């Protein structure tokens, strides 16, 4: 899967979960950059990303992700 495609699909997921059509995420985006990204919506987000890409993150992967870029790396490595 191309990184570009992952970002496009991920952007849609972020927009849906945070109900904000103007949202744009990049590799450096973290929870600090999005107002509603708290621990509860993080759970919704992870579940929605798993649903979008048809994968289940391992526990260690979820807790280890520092930013969106690491999430994208994980998605790409899982899709291979």
């Amino acid at each position, binding site marked *: 899967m191309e990184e570009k495609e992952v970002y496009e699909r991920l952007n849609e*997921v972020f927009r*849906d*979960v*945070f*109900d904000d059509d103007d949202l744009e995420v990049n590799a450096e985006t973290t929870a600090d950059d999005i107002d509603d990204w708290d621990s*509860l919506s993080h*759970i*919704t987000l*992870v*579940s*929605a990303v798993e*649903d*979008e890409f048809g994968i289940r993150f*391992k*526990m260690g992967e*979820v*807790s280890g992700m520092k930013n969106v870029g690491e999430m994208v790396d994980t998605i790409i490595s899982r899709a291979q």
Partner: protein
Amino acid sequence: MKELEYPFDPGYILKKKRSIKRALLSDGRPRTEKRIAVLAGSTANEIVDMLELFLLDIGIAPVFYLSEYNRWWQDAVFGEPELDSFAPDVAFIHTSLRNITAFPRIDEDKAAADALFDAEMEKFSAAWDGIKSRYKCPIIQNNFELPFFRIMGNRDAYDYRGRVNFVTRLNAAFAKHAEESDGFYINDINYLSACKGLDKWSDPACWHMYKYAMSIPEIPEFSYNLAAIIKSLFGKNKKALVLDLDNTLWGGVVGDDGVDGIEIGPETHMGQVYAEFQRYLKLVRDSGVMLTVCSKNDEENAMAGLNHPSGILRPDDFVMITANWENKDANVAATAAGLNIGEDALVFVDDNPAERAIVASQLPDVAVPNIGAPEEYIRVLDRSRFFEMTAFSGDDLKRNEMYRQNAARAAQQSKFADYGEYLDSLEMTAVIDDFLPVYLPRITQLTNKSNQFNLTTRRFTEDEMRAVYSDPGYIRLYGSLKDKFGDNGIVSVVIGKIDGDSVDIILWLMSCRVLKREMEYAMLDSLANRAKAAGAKELIGHYYPTRKNGMVKELYRDFGFEQVSCDEEQNTCWRLALDGYTPRTEHIKIERNE
């Protein structure tokens, strides 16, 4: 909302919950506020979010109290000021396997295991008693999902030390409490988790990372099941199924394939599937849900299909059977009106997506599930939880009969739109024949008191009538009419005098009790037959106006006579050629006296 109807996409609802909520809140529908206390032994935020969507969708605007993390038992037993002032309409205790304090150890004896069991039940009983005494509201309590591991393997199910055995005992005790208590309801997560499979349900990662008792994608269905209980508690259940016939209750099209060609019963695989669906619907009916039919069919074919020897459902199982070629949305609306229930109490079941689409678009309050393939019908209908029964009484069993009677009355009225159908529904039989001596008094009496439907208003004494009776120069007819409501007796008298090629109608009268029943046509048909048999070529009719008989001024014109004269007093004379006469009666079965 379509997105929230079973079978829904849980991932979609979870992801879009914010925009779905926004759409629901802006749809302008009236909603009843209900205050729901959630006392949770695990994280419940997503559960509450999902529950809110499903409740909003069924017309309930929920306000929530959510206990502090793992304070559910303390809140329930000792109370909590915020909860006290919240004053819940319903309390939901969201506990799971993770909230069982202690399981029997493998080195403990039976008495120790029983003591643990008793302690666990006392813990929960204290919570139930606390809520009941303090808030006097209904309590919804989860039972337990089964453990996701078995130390003893299969022995876990029957050994007192086994966790599977321990949980099964607790679930039985919870069920017993529910059976014996008013206002206490089980949210059956043991069943729900079995539907999904424990491996999908019990996600250790969700517990250890987020303290959710179940896997996140299972939450929408969990909340949907919970919403069904709340919906039922607050009287928002559905009441009736509106069922299509062809490819819904049986395979094939009865009008095309014939009753012998439809698939129902043990002969074919598909026939077995439809038979199981009919058996399911019969059980649903027996529980007090009304069944109705809405089918594009001739009624005759519909009834033939419902009387198929291998069928389970019979015409009597339905409170209303609508088989015609009207649009389905019109028929479904008429069903609601006929049963005198709201359209929001109906579930429309049809295999045809086009029919579902028109009903869903024209009648937004009617539930229109996408029932899938025949082998999925039961699951979709059942899991949709349209008829969740939080209460059950003897009245539920009688409901079908009561509504069938009401529907029969309403049907009589609504069928006036198609008058012929109404007449057919009366099941009329007329006896039309020459006078009998025994009837002469009644014939005379009727003749002398009829004023409105009376063309000549000619009066006869009984002796004069007897003279007519014994004179072969007359054609005499009396008519009696009975219908399914009873026998009206003799209601019409016609006398014609044979005059060469003509029959001169000197008397024509009818009781107004049977106006617009087609009885006048039945009399005309009989008169025409007898006149022809007597060698006559034409009928001659007269109308002599009185103050009371204006209603029949144009009767002969309606009959197809042509007017031949009209004098200064507006007396009119009419003529009908008998050659090529075609009978008019369509809705009365005509007999002669024995």
